[in-house]
């Protein structure tokens, strides 16, 4: 295989694996901060038990997130050296800002969060929890800013020609607040909150089904349900706003997301379907003119299709972009329905009576994870063939001096190490869940005797 394909596979694999963890830590961090805050406010020891329990799972998740994240920071240089020279002035400064303003904050307070229970006062500990949570939120900001600049470059000019050409910053804040960054930061935060809250919902639904830790599980479930409902509903808004931005800034990506080929015609909205790139036809269930309506509030308004772009300037994998995008949307819709229905039952007072619903919650931990992954796949594959939209092509950006054998070597190592790491993660989280927040054998009548 050639170097470019291998470099892309390696990057996709390492970033996709990495992206399992940071969203989980951001989401669990939010729930943990709420629980610890409630503990400080009410003095109810149940919240302390919950905080300590989720902190253990947070610690593993955060640790793997950091370890796999360092690799990303250096992989631009090892595998994408042409790209790195081209964008260092801008992209590099966003990464440096992430280190300085976000990563430093979260990693330093992490020590106090994990090991400080017996060393600092509860208030200082709570402060550390908040700092770690904020740090992880800021991290997301700078990373998404860097990526958004690749999607919708702003605040820069191109200097030099040929090999010496590179982007230089002209307006820092225009670069930070480029046309897509705000929508995407919010959307990514929301995806992260859902990843974390659905893990909490899943674990406590499992306890409730088994009849274990009933009292605290009900509390944790309700807290997370409130967050999950608000976030899944509002994520629809940030998603819509983000798609509006794509329509303006990256029309080829939008066209690929709905498999819309005609140069200029009203575009349909598919519930699901299959794109045939050869015949340029989509088979599936659609709302005619639906995309036109979403973008222009008019079913008849034309939308730029893929054929308006030269063959070598449109995404190569239209069907993949279409499928990933639709899987993300379907999961989003399902989560809205699920959380709203659960809230309705809560209002009726029968939330914990329906076993089948708890079962769905127990399994639905996977859904936000899948949505996060496929959402990014749609965003990144939809950007192709560009690595910097409109300026630098992906097939120009990789390290020319690195051989395919070198990448094959590192890729195999990554596959082995990451597989082991993933199994360890599952094993270790599963063990902590099975073990539970406290020892039941010693405290058969709920935990109060224990504390």
């Amino acid at each position, binding site marked *: 295989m050639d170097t470019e394909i291998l470099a892309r596979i390696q990057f996709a694999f390492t970033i996709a694996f990495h992206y399992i963890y940071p969203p989980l830590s951001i989401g669990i961090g939010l729930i943990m901060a709420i629980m610890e805050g409630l503990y400080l406010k009410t003095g109810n020891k149940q919240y302390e038990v919950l905080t300590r329990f989720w902190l253990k799972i947070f*610690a*593993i998740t955060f*640790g*793997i997130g*950091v*370890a*796999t994240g*360092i*690799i990303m*920071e*250096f992989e*631009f*240089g*090892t595998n994408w*050296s*042409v790209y*790195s*020279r081209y*964008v*260092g*002035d801008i992209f*590099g*400064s966003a*990464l*440096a800002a992430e*280190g*300085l303003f976000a*990563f*430093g*904050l979260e*990693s*330093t*307070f*992490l*020590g*106090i969060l*994990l*090991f*400080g*229970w*017996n060393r*600092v006062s509860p208030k200082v500990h709570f402060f550390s929890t908040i700092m770690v949570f904020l740090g992880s939120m800021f991290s997301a900001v700078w990373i998404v800013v860097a990526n958004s600049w690749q999607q919708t470059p702003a605040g820069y000019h191109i*200097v030099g020609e040929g*090999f010496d050409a*590179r982007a*230089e*910053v002209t307006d*820092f804040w225009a670069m930070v607040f480029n046309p897509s960054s705000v929508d995407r930061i919010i959307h990514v935060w929301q995806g992260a909150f859902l990843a974390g809250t659905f893990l909490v919902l899943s674990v406590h639904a499992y306890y409730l089904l088994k009849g274990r830790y009933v009292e605290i599980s009900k509390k944790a479930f309700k807290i997370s349900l409130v967050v999950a409902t608000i976030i899944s509903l509002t994520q629809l808004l940030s998603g819509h706003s983000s798609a509006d931005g794509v329509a303006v800034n990256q029309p080829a990506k939008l066209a690929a997301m709905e498999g819309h080929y005609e140069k200029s015609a009203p575009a349909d909205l598919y519930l699901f379907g299959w794109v045939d790139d050869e015949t340029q036809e989509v088979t599936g269930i659609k709302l005619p003119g639906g995309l036109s309506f979403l973008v222009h509030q008019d079913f008849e308004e034309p939308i730029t299709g893929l054929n308006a772009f030269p063959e070598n300037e449109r995404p190569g994998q239209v069907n993949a972009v279409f499928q990933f995008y639709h899987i993300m949307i379907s999961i989003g819709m399902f989560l809205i329905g699920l959380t709203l229905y659960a809230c309705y039952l809560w209002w009726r007072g029968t939330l914990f009576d329906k076993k089948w619903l708890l079962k769905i919650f127990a399994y639905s931990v996977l859904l936000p994870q899948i949505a996060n992954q496929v959402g990014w796949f749609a965003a990144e594959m939809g950007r192709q063939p560009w690595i910097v939209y409109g300026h630098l092509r992906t097939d120009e950006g990789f*390290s*020319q001096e690195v*051989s395919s*054998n*070198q990448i094959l*070597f*590192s890729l195999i*190592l990554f596959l082995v*190490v990451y597989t082991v*790491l993933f199994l*360890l993660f599952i094993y*270790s989280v599963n063990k902590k869940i099975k073990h539970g927040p406290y020892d039941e054998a010693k405290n058969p009548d709920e935990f109060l005797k224990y504390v």
Partner: protein
Amino acid sequence: METFLGIDYPTLWYLVVGLLFSGYAILEGFDYGAGAWHLFFKKDLSRRIAINAIGPLWDANQVWLIIGGGALFAGFPVMYATMLSAMYIPFMLFLLLLVLRSSAIKFRSSEEMKWWRTTWDIIYFISNTLIAFLLGVVLGNVLQGFEIGENYTYKGGIFFAFLSPYAIMAGFTTLSLFMTQGAIFLLLKTEGRLHSRLTFLLKKGMIFFIISFAVTSLYTLIFLPGVTDRFKEQPLFFTLPILAFLAVANVPRLVSKKKYFQALIFSSLTMAFLLMLVAFQLYPVLLPSTIDPAFSVTIYNAASSQKSLGIMLTMVVVGAPLLAGYLIFLYKTFNGKVQLDDTSY
């Protein structure tokens, strides 16, 4: 070119990057160094204490690597891209070893089984040792220069070219320096039998360091082009190796007086002086080209725009005091000997 206090921006950024990597070497130096002693401790409890000595600190220490990497990428993108793609294999190994090392810290004590702990102990020991060694190897390669052709493209060997004799020597020097640093740090954090064992080990570590340092210095002076010229141009540079030597000579005295914190300061100073020596030796070159000096990567042809450097210097002015504040708070909280409790690894 814009300047601040008469110093141009690329030079200022060179100082920032140098400072960040010195901080990384000093702080992660004792973390990696402590890990490189791991299998020299026989008892399970000693090993557990050794890991928990760095337990709350290593994540924060690692920040220096992340910021250093970001600073290099942002300020000298050409250097970042050329060095990393030319040193592909050592950097990939380095990164994977970092992952293994973090996993070992997290998972080692999570199970009681003997085979489990022994396996992780071995992984932890090997990863720390090799990380320290590889960092020195990369530094050795940078000092020697790369086969860089036109447009900063690397023309050298692909798989094993990085393992030159000089690079290996530099690797051992770094490893031994980190091990010295690590042993002193553990002396500071432990008591009892582990502590007495460390006093013994530290002596071995220092001998290891003095031998590798002497050999590497000799090789540098004899075989590396331009080093002696540098000293002739700027005789003041001579003070740096002398200071490094004085600092390291002071360590055994302080250790015998049980002043471990001061000893740690002096071994950190040794590192700082040696890194300054490297920095002055190279300046303004970042990566010498062995093909033609005209192809070398320097702080001027590698630098980002003046505008970008200006923005980042401002960020450093704002961010550095904050970061220093967090670190001081963290180190104060975990001051003193290791005490295992229910939150420990």
